[in-house]
């Protein structure tokens, strides 16, 4: 199982190691981190909450879809939970495949699919309050 939802710090090297092999000619990684501002407001921290078993099930579905589109691709999707200050890494995706174009495309596909369907939420904490992202309020 190369997918993970955890309160522990993420390791890009660990994710890469889970997918890379001598049958791969390419490895592409995505690293997402906490930015210190949003829509002109300072952000003190993000708080991530996950429905862990379902998030892992969605990560597996994402990998299955990616393998169907780009045969030979392997994905490792690691997401962190809890309160993270700016600069901390919140998500790591490693994609490895025989050829580079598939690795690039599968990596992009995985982060966009995660953002759309993985049951993970974040609350932005500001100096003077907080709000859940995505509620459109």
């Amino acid at each position, binding site marked *: 199982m190369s997918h993970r939802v955890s309160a522990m710090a993420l390791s890009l090297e660990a994710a890469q190691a889970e997918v890379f092999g001598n049958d791969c000619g390419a490895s592409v990684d995505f690293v*997402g*981190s*906490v*930015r210190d501002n*949003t829509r002109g407001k300072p952000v003190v921290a993000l708080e*991530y*909450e*996950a*429905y862990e*078993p*379902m*998030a892992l*099930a969605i990560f597996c579905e994402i990998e299955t879809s990616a393998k169907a589109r780009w045969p030979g691709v392997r994905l490792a999707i690691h*997401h962190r939970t809890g309160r993270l200050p700016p600069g901390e890494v*919140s*998500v790591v995706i490693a994609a490895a495949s025989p050829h580079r174009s598939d690795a690039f495309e599968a990596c992009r596909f995985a*982060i966009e699919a*995660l*953002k*759309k*369907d*993985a*049951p*993970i*939420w*974040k*609350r932005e904490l500001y100096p003077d309050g907080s709000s*859940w*992202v*995505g*509620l*459109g309020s």
Partner: protein
Amino acid sequence: MVPAMQVTLLFFAAARERAGTSKETLELPEGATASQAKARALELHPALAPLGPQLRVAVDQAFAEGDAPLREGSEVALIPPVSGGCS
């Protein structure tokens, strides 16, 4: 009278805060559906109303259609708009 069954209802993020709980047991008539469970949750927790149209329903850890049937012991989760990853 239709026999009853019990399902577990899970609340996350904004829905958890508005409901004031992360988990509860819900009694529903046998054969009830995912959308009936959601409707019952909204009745029991009026503070969820503003989120109602945005809540997706998952049954046993997979997104479910509204007419998906529930079973005794099903795990039903109300899923507010997700925002994982990074900005």
